[in-house]
C-alpha cells in the first residue's frame, strides 16, 4: 500500500459515516415523494394533450383531478372505486369504452372487434358475464362503405364469439376531417357471477400475481401496422374475449380470486401500479417469469420500449390468495389461448403503493407508470 494508505483509510471511515447520514437524507426525500404520490392526482393542465389519453399518469390526473371530484365528490359512489365496471343495482354491472384506433384494421383484428372485446373484457374482469351491448358509431363523411361493412361484420362476429347481443345503438356522421374514419363506442351490461368477490382494494400480502398470456402483442402490432418504423415482424393483436379465462379463474379460486384487470392502455405496468395504490400494498414482479414472445421483445428492444408498458387487448392479470394460486394457474392454462399463462410475482406489505421488479439480470428496480405514450429512445 502507498504511503498515503493510512490517510485514505481514515478518510474512508469518515466517508462511511457521511454515507450513512447521506442515505438517511435520501430516505427522507424518498418518503416525501411517496407521500406526495399517495395523494389524489391533480389536473392542472391548461389544455388536453395526447398524454391525457395514454393511460398513464396524465390520464390518472384527468380522472382523479377532474372527473371524480365532479361526478363522485364524496367518493361514496361506484365511480370512485375506479373499477372496470360499475355496479348499477345489486349484481348488475355497467361499463363503457370508446375506440379510436388508427389504422382501423391491423394484423389480428380491427376497430369493430376491439369495440366488442374491450367492453366484454371490462365486464369479465369485474367478474360479470356479459348480457348485452350498446353500439354507437361516429362516421366520417366519405368513409368507404366497404370499410364500414367490414367493421359491422367484425362487430357481429366478435359479439357472436363472446355470446353477447348488441341490443341498442346509435349512428352519427361528422364532416370530413372531424373524425379519423370512424370511432366506435360500446357500453355493456353484465351480471356479476355469484362466485365473484373481486375488488381493486382487495389485494393482500402473499397474494400471487398471474398473467393470462404473453404481453405486448396488441400494442406492438398497432405500432408496426402504422408503418412508422419500417419494421416487419410477425406480430398480431391478441384481441379476444376474456370471459372464458375469467370464468375458469372464478371456478378454480372462487372468493380467493381477489381481483382481475385487463392490461390495456399502459400495459401490465399501469394495472399493477393502480392496484398497488388502491390496495395500499407493494407488488413484486419477477421479470424473467413474464411471458413475452421473442418477436415482441425484439421489436420492443429495437424501439427502446418496455413490453410491460405496451397495451394488450386479450391479457388479464389475476391476483389470487396463495393457497389457490396453483389451482387457478392450472385452470387458466387449460383455457384455449391461455396455455402460456404464468405466475409472475406476488403482493407484499412493503413498500405500499409501489411496484418493484427483480430484473432478469439480478438487480432490482421500480416499475412506474409512464406519463404518456411509450416513446422510442433517441440513440
Amino acid at each position, binding site marked *: 500500500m502507498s504511503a498515503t494508505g493510512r490517510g485514505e483509510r481514515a478518510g*474512508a471511515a469518515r466517508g462511511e459515516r457521511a454515507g450513512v447520514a447521506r*442515505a438517511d437524507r*435520501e430516505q427522507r426525500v424518498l418518503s416525501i415523494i*411517496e407521500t406526495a404520490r399517495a395523494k389524489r392526482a391533480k389536473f392542472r393542465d391548461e389544455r*388536453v394533450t395526447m398524454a391525457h389519453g395514454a393511460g398513464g399518469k396524465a390520464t390518472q*390526473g384527468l380522472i382523479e383531478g377532474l372527473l371524480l371530484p365532479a361526478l363522485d365528490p364524496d367518493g361514496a359512489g361506484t365511480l370512485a372505486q375506479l373499477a372496470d365496471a360499475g355496479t348499477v343495482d345489486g349484481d348488475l354491472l355497467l361499463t363503457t369504452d370508446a375506440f379510436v384506433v388508427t389504422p382501423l384494421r391491423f394484423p389480428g383484428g380491427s376497430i369493430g372487434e376491439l369495440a366488442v372485446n374491450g367492453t366484454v373484457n371490462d365486464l369479465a374482469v369485474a367478474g360479470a358475464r356479459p348480457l348485452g351491448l350498446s353500439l354507437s358509431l361516429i362516421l366520417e363523411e366519405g368513409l368507404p362503405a366497404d370499410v364500414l361493412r367490414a367493421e359491422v361484420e367484425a362487430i357481429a362476429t366478435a359479439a357472436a364469439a363472446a355470446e353477447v347481443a348488441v341490443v341498442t345503438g346509435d349512428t352519427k356522421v361528422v364532416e370530413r376531417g372531424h373524425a379519423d374514419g370512424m370511432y366506435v363506442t360500446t357500453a355493456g351490461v353484465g351480471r356479476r357471477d355469484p362466485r365473484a368477490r373481486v375488488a381493486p382494494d382487495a389485494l393482500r400480502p402473499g397474494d400471487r400475481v398471474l398473467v393470462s398470456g404473453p404481453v405486448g402483442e396488441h400494442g406492438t402490432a398497432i405500432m408496426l401496422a402504422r408503418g412508422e418504423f419500417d419494421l416487419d415482424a410477425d406480430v398480431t393483436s391478441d384481441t379476444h374475449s376474456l370471459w372464458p379465462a375469467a370464468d375458469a379463474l372464478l371456478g378454480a379460486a372462487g372468493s380467493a380470486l381477489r381481483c382481475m384487470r385487463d392490461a390495456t392502455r399502459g400495459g401490465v405496468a399501469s394495472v399493477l401500479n393502480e392496484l398497488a395504490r388502491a390496495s395500499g400494498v407493494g407488488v413484486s414482479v419477477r421479470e424473467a417469469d413474464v411471458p413475452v414472445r421473442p418477436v415482441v421483445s425484439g421489436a420492443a428492444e429495437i424501439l427502446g420500449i418496455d413490453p410491460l408498458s405496451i397495451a394488450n387487448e386479450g391479457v388479464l392479470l389475476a391476483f389470487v390468495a396463495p393457497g389457490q394460486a396453483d389451482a387457478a394457474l392450472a385452470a387458466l392454462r387449460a383455457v384455449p389461448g391461455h396455455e402460456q399463462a404464468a405466475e409472475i410475482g406476488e403482493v407484499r406489505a412493503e413498500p405500499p403503493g409501489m411496484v418493484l421488479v427483480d430484473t432478469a439480470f*439480478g438487480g432490482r428496480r421500480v416499475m412506474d407508470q409512464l406519463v404518456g405514450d411509450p416513446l422510442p429512445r433517441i440513440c
Partner: protein
Amino acid sequence: MRFVDEFRDAELGRVVAGELLATVDPARHYKLMEVCGGHTHAIYKYGIDDLLPDNVELVHGPGCPVCVIPMGRVDDGIAIAHEPGVIFTCFGDMLRVPGSHGTLLDAKAQGADVRMVYSPLDALRIAREQPDRQVVFFAIGFETTAPSTALTLMRAKAEGIDNFSVVCNHVTIVPPLRALLESPDLRLDGFIGPGHVSTVVGARPFQFIPERYGKPVVISGFEPLDVLQSALMLLRQLRDGRCEVENQYARVVPYDGNAAALRVMGEVFVLRPHFEWRGLGFISQSGLRLSDAYADFDAELRFATPGVRVADPKACQCGEVLKGVIKPWECKVFGTACTPERPIGTCMVSSEGACAAYYNFGRFARRREREAV
C-alpha cells in the same frame, strides 16, 4: 434474442460482481462517471447498482441529448412551430422539454403542427409529400445522431427539396468532458466512456483524459454485462496503477471511429464558436451549425426566432446533476415540484436523464441499501 441475451446473463453478472469485489480496495471509495445517458438508463433499468460493491459509486454524466438543451433553444423551436404553414418535427423526448412558456406538446395542443418522428429521414419524407408546407426538423444529439441529420440534409440537397430545414442543436462530446475535468469541485476516479458516440468518433478523442488529466477511460457497451465489465476494467486499471483508454465495446467501436460518418459530418456541419449547454453554460467549440454549403437548409436563417438566452429556473439544479456534483435526489425540487409528469428540468424529461431514470427506476434500490447498512 441472440446478441442481446448473452449480455444480460445473470449468472455471468454474478461472476463479474464477484471479481469486482475481489478487485476493489475495501478501504477506498471509488467514484466512476458514466458519461452517456444510455448507460444511466441501463444502470437503473437493470439494477446494476445492486451488483456493485458498496464502495463503488456511479456518478451520472452530461451525455444525455435532451438534457443539455437550454431553454432558449426550446423557445426558438416553439416560435418556429407556431409559424403559419410549418410542420415542426422532432424526436419524442423533445416534445416534453419545458421552454420558458411551456413545451412543444403544449404548442401542439394550442394548434401548432408538431409531429414526433423517429428519424430525420421521416421529416424529409413529410417534406417530400407536402411540398406546400415548410417542414422543420429540430435536430439534437451528440456525434451519435449528427451523421443521420447530415445524410438527410445531403439527400434533401441532392433532391432539391426546398421546403425542408433543420434547427441544428447538435453538440460534440469532448468539450463538455474537458469542461468537467477543469471543474474544481469534481472528484472522479475514472470514466465509463460513451459507447454510441465512440462508434462514430472512435476511441482516439478520449486519449487526452488519461494523458492530460490522469483519469482512466473504458469505452463501454450498453448491456448490463458491458457496464459491469467496464467498471471492472476501470477498477483493475486503478488497482494496477495504469491509466489509459480501454475499449470494452470493441465489437462495435473501432479505435479510429467511422470514417464515412465523420466525412459527412465534416461536409454538412461546422463548429460554432460557442454553444450554450443546459446547466453548464457556454462551452466554446462545442456545438455544430450547418456549413455555408447547407445554409439554405438552416431553419435559424429561414425563420425569425427570438434567439434569447433564457436563464434556467432558479430552483432547478440540472447543471449540478449533469456535472455529477449532486445526485438527482439532492436537488431541491426533485420528485416534488419536478416530476416526470411536470418536469422543471431537462434531466427529468428524457428516459436517459439521470433524474428521470432515478425517479422511474431507482426510487427503491437506494432505500434497500440503507436498510442493509
